[in-house]
């Protein structure tokens, strides 16, 4: 069993709002943050989850080389819920060398590159001189930006396993803390809207023309979104407060099936969930709620339903919150981890939005409406292209699970 960690601080900015309070309010009101796509010059018949106010964010003058939508989104989120202050306090407590940085992203600041390719030198074909590859395009750019923002000197890395990226950061950080290489970790995910994902998922015919409808009989694709979500992980005290949110375990697996389609029987997803329970020493019956990957594509929801049913039957309440937030891709795992933390602390099981008619072939216990109940243990699923699966188990308080 892996020793539990505590999410001592956490925050999230998504199309639901900036910080925990508006996110909780939106969940309580069953309000979606999705809107018709008007992003940049994109002309696609789809809905997206766009974070308000990103364009107005300004980076510190010494870190201008990192200026791009992804860094701005990261900075916006770090300033919410006094998360930046919590990071500085952790650095003061443990030392800059002993605080790790693990962020998930799928496209980083590639929007900057996409725009730069419209501005190639007509004679030489060169990129504009101000284009900064390492500061904006590279997957590590957002990590480097946050590391320099806080003067961190410990291990720092981007985990880039597509849509499970920022779930896997929890697992990676947990290993490094367990191995006593660090005492705390900033984990999270930052993924911002760009043309590659909007046109790419459109090319794969995986975007819906309407707000996505996870687990609906006529679901027809996802709604792309952006988000930044962060948590500060530290060793859990022996007797955590009743309101403490703990990370109990992580499970990872590979589908070994197809680059962009899940295995139809959900075997890889099932293995990830099993491994998370085993890592935490928790039985399936102890899980009170499952936040599904639930993208709203026909294949994902069908495979995930099979996997969940195989392990949990049709009993455990589940929902996808992507009808509210959209699919934040590389930030989805961390965003949904924060939603799980909010659910635990608020005793709220968020219902899934936009489902009109249940799919009779998906037999899990899907919640269409919010429910109130004391939650002790919740599971969050994230599955990515390349068959990269990760399930995270979170608990509340001293008797979180067992």
């Amino acid at each position: 069993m892996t020793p539990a960690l505590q999410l001592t601080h956490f925050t999230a900015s998504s199309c639901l709002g900036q910080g925990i309070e508006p996110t909780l309010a939106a969940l309580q009101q069953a309000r979606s943050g999705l809107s018709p796509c008007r992003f940049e010059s994109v002309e696609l018949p789809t809905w997206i989850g766009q974070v308000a106010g990103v364009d107005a964010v300004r980076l510190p003058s010494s870190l201008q080389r990192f200026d791009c939508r992804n860094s701005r989104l990261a900075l916006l989120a770090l300033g919410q819920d006094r998360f930046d202050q919590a990071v500085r306090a952790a650095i003061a407590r443990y030392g800059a060398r002993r605080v790790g940085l693990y962020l998930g992203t799928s496209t980083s600041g590639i929007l900057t590159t996409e725009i730069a390719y419209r501005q190639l030198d007509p004679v030489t074909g060169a990129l504009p001189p101000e284009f900064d590859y390492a500061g904006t395009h590279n997957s590590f750019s957002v990590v480097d930006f946050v590391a320099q923002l806080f003067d961190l000197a410990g291990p720092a890395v981007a985990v880039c396993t597509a849509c499970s990226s920022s779930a896997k950061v929890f697992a990676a950080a947990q290993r490094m803390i367990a191995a006593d290489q660090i005492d705390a970790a900033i984990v999270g995910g930052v993924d911002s809207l760009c043309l590659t994902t909007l046109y790419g998922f459109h090319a794969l015919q995986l975007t819906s023309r309407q707000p996505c409808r996870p687990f609906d009989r006529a679901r027809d694709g996802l709604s792309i979104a952006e988000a930044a979500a962060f948590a500060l992980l530290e060793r859990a005290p022996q007797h955590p407060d009743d309101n403490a949110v703990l990370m109990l375990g992580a499970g990872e697996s590979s589908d070994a099936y197809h680059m962009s389609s899940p295995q139809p029987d959900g075997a890889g997803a099932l293995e990830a969930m099993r491994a998370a329970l085993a890592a935490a020493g928790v039985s399936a019956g102890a899980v009170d709620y499952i936040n599904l990957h639930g993208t709203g594509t026909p294949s994902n929801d069908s495979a995930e339903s099979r996997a969940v049913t195989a392990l949990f039957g049709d009993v455990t309440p589940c929902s996808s919150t992507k009808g509210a937030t959209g699919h934040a891709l590389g930030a989805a795992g961390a965003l949904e981890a924060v939603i799980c933390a909010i659910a635990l602390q608020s005793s709220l099981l968020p219902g899934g939005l936009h489902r009109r008619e249940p799919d009779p072939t998906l037999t899990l216990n899907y919640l269409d409406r919010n429910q109130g109940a004391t939650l002790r243990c919740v599971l969050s699923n994230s599955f990515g292209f390349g068959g990269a699966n990760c399930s995270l188990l979170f608990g509340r308080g001293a008797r979180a699970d067992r």
Partner: protein
Amino acid sequence: MSRLNAVITSVGLLGPGIRGWEDAREVLNGQRAYGGQRTVIPPAAALPPAERRRAGRVIHTALAVGAEALAHAGADAGTLPMVFASSGGDGDNCHEICVALAAEPRQISPTRFTNSVHNAAAGYWSIAHGCREASTALCAGDASVGAGLLEACAQLASGAGRVLLLCYDADYPPPLRAKQPVPDAFGAALLLQRAPAADRLATITLELSDTLPATAMSDTGLEALRRMIPAARCLPLLQSLARQRAGTVVLDYLRGVQLAIEVRT
């Protein structure tokens, strides 16, 4: 503070003028002069034909060095967790997408989009070898080798018996090349395990250091390689394996932080 350890049992290697670990050994231990001919990347025999066609140079590089490390150890890929580390993924693929998005009408090939994920090599590897163990794909820019070593060793410390670490990069096409001047493809795979093994190449212990300077290669050609391709930052470690020389090598990691590796043969 406890330190991270690993037993290295085999290596796969490919790069400019390097056609595999046995070939590289002679160069790294000074038996033969280094010549930096362009990297020859063998197509991944383990991939189904459709996937083999779709995969780009960087993916073939990763799969080639991984397969070589497995072959040397006689290991079964199906049971090995994997850590993939690359400074920048598939630049050719990214370039084609950006060109398509700058044109009208904007149309991306579905395959290009699928291959654009940083974990594409991990996905192809798991399909090629039927491996359903956990995999991760890391990027720490130029520090990706160090990040991969730390992650692989942390996995061993957390209970994994063996881990396959693959570090790889390929050159970007223009105009990106001017901004990230990686000259050629380079890949290194290390098969790591927790338990002692009689047929090991070495046992290593990792430690972060802010005082020790990175170990340079004495051969000027190899030193240029180490400096120009981020994945080649592992060369000083590979040299001590090839020479079976105990001691400490220091790999370039993050700004102001190096990875000191105590090598015991």
